[in-house]
């Protein structure tokens, strides 16, 4: 924190005082800074650090609310149970498949929509608002809408041309996954588009003009100018979406509840926690999901050098 504060300091300022020799004014300013931060820090600790630590403590116990008298400390055994279970790895795979397919399609579609929004000549505000509508709808509500649309008896999809009238979409593994992924894409492409648009507007028009003068085609301009300059925005958008998609829950919960092998790790955790009331194993799954999400974020930030707060790769 101190280091970044120093780095952020303007170079015009006189060289920082030597370590150990902090003026009393700096001292009191630091104190004030801490006091101003304190409420936020305390709230953050209470609502994030405490539940995470508590989940970790729970995950070390044999703890089933239905059998309260059998509670005992069992170390890492719950993690062994989870990691040695075929079901866990099956659900990790399902989550991975849903994440990769939905995020990659979202990226392409989001980019197209961002370009359209950026280049829209009239009705810019309207276009941007309309595009955002799916993202503004509560996921559970959207999931119900998709479920009803594809339902066997009442849905309209089976009545469309080129689709078998009696197709039971939620009656098969692949078709269920297709609907779930489509719902995810429909719902979060606007978010992706908006983040990409933010990156797009930062590219100066002069670059395109210069390229045009040099005779670059539209595709060349996109590949040589737009994409490289948007890399930071793309990485940030990908990071957010990958983190979100790796915890996919609502759509699956509403549409199949995990049937037809469409279960994600979040659904699995929910089943252990809420359905079986097995807080030990369920918390172990929660902690593992947390570590997974943490790992993804770490990879993006350290590996690809994403700077979330600035939306650009860090150069140190």
């Amino acid at each position, binding site marked *: 924190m101190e280091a970044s504060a120093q780095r952020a300091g303007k170079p015009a300022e006189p060289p920082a005082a030597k370590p150990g020799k902090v003026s009393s004014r700096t001292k009191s300013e630091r104190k004030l800074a801490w006091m101003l931060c304190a409420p936020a820090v305390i709230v953050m600790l209470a609502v994030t650090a405490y539940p995470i630590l508590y989940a970790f403590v729970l995950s070390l116990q044999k703890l*089933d*609310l*239905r*059998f*309260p008298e059998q509670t005992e400390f069992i170390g890492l055994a719950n993690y062994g*149970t*989870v990691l040695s*279970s075929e*079901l*866990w790895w099956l659900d990790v795979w399902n989550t991975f498949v849903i994440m990769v397919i939905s995020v990659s399609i979202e990226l392409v579609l989001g980019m197209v929509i961002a370009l359209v929004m950026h280049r829209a000549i009239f009705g810019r505000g309207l276009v941007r608002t309309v595009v955002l509508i799916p993202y503004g709808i509560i996921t559970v509500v959207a999931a119900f809408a998709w479920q009803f649309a594809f339902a*066997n*008896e009442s849905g309209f999809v089976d009545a469309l041309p080129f689709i078998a009238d*009696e*197709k*039971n979409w*939620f*009656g098969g593994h692949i078709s269920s996954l297709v609907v779930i992924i489509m719902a995810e894409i429909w719902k979060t492409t606007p978010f992706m588009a908006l983040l990409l648009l933010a990156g797009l507007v930062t590219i100066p028009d002069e670059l395109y003009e210069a390229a045009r003068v040099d005779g670059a085609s539209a595709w060349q301009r996109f590949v040589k100018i737009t994409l490289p300059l948007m890399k930071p925005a793309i990485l940030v958008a990908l990071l957010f979406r990958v983190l979100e998609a790796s915890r996919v829950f609502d759509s699956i919960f509403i549409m*199949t*509840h*995990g*049937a*037809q092998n469409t279960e994600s790790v979040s659904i*699995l955790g929910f*089943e*252990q926690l*809420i*359905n*079986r*009331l*097995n807080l030990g*194993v369920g918390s172990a*799954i929660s902690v593992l999901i947390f570590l997974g999400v943490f790992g993804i974020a770490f990879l993006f930030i350290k590996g690809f050098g994403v700077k979330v707060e600035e939306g650009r790769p860090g150069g140190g």
Partner: protein
Amino acid sequence: MGEKFETRRAKRALIVVLASALAGAVLSACGGSSSGPPTLSFFVAIQPGGTIEATAERCTKEADGKYTIKPELLPNDATQAREQLVRRLGAKDNSIDIIGLDVILTSEFANAGWIAPWTGKQKEEASKDVFPSVLKTASFEGELYASPFNTNTQLLWYRKDLVKQPPKTWDEMIEVAEELPEAGQIQVQAERYEGYTVWVNALIESAGTSILKSPEELDLEQKPTEEALEVIGKLAHSSARSPELPTSNEDTARLAFEGGTAAFMTNYTFAFASAKENAPEINKEMGAAPFPQVNSNPAKPPLGGFNLAVSNYSGHKQEAFEAALCLSGEKSELTATELDGLPPSHENLYTNPIVKKAYPGFAGLVKEEVEAAGPRPVTPAYQDVTSAIQRTLHPPESIPAEGEEGKYDELKENLEAAVKREGLL
């Protein structure tokens, strides 16, 4: 100086006003329940006909100022209703007094210490004239934990205009349905949810074995279990299956039957009243027959319904027991039959005109079915057992029709882990 003083005083006055307002709010929030007759909250699944509201109102009136019963309606789906209850009870929530408990939940809630056992005179009154099969669903380790409210069972509904004689066995039914030139579907419940366990359990029971011998011991004899699973496989691979088989529940079954595509349907008694309202033409031809059997053994129809329990965290247990007795009494059961078509759990009520009117011509059959019913396994780890069944046997198409090696070994292995609450489910 004086001005500054004035603002300071105004500030202080404001703080005093705010503080007292806050204190007042806190006090009134706490004090509401401690003064005057208590309000008992009654958490129970919603009944669209209005049974819950009507009985709560009547029992409040009969209490004559001793307590007020306030219904808190839960979702109709058994799993969702349970979720809401366990989240509250797991956190020792004292805002629940009376619980409408699905028959499968008694042992789980009793073992967790969430519900209080019934004793003495009240126990006697709660169990008087109740079907023994229903009473079992309200008991755990020899104690009565709930007062039976309504029961429920499935019948075989068939189209009298298409089928002269209702089939006795599942095999017979599939054969007859396959021969029908149209409307030959058989409607059951095979979505991955509790209703699928209901069906599987009825088949296994009818085949001559049970899922559990005791809360922690499997029964599941191989030959009868395989025969039961074969029925599912046979239907799933038959032309008599409906396209929505793996996503079918009570409601999709009812809709298809009312729509005229099915000749047969196994479903609860509500289906009759529903068809009467939505599809009177179909209802005219709707026959009720005993639940089909698997082989020559007698059928063991499913058993559903609600029992009323008193929460251990309730601050007004005595009143809650009294209220639960009234809510589950004969008068309330008849209200449930009249408004929502739910069968009473008291055997002496089946000659009552209200019951006879609700089940024209088949009140006696409903009674016989409840008596013959094969309840679902009784164990505190019921959720694990039902999850294991659903996960192993869903989708129904995954079970081979016959000849090939079935899913018996897998089912047994998963159920063994489930009763010990091992692994992930």
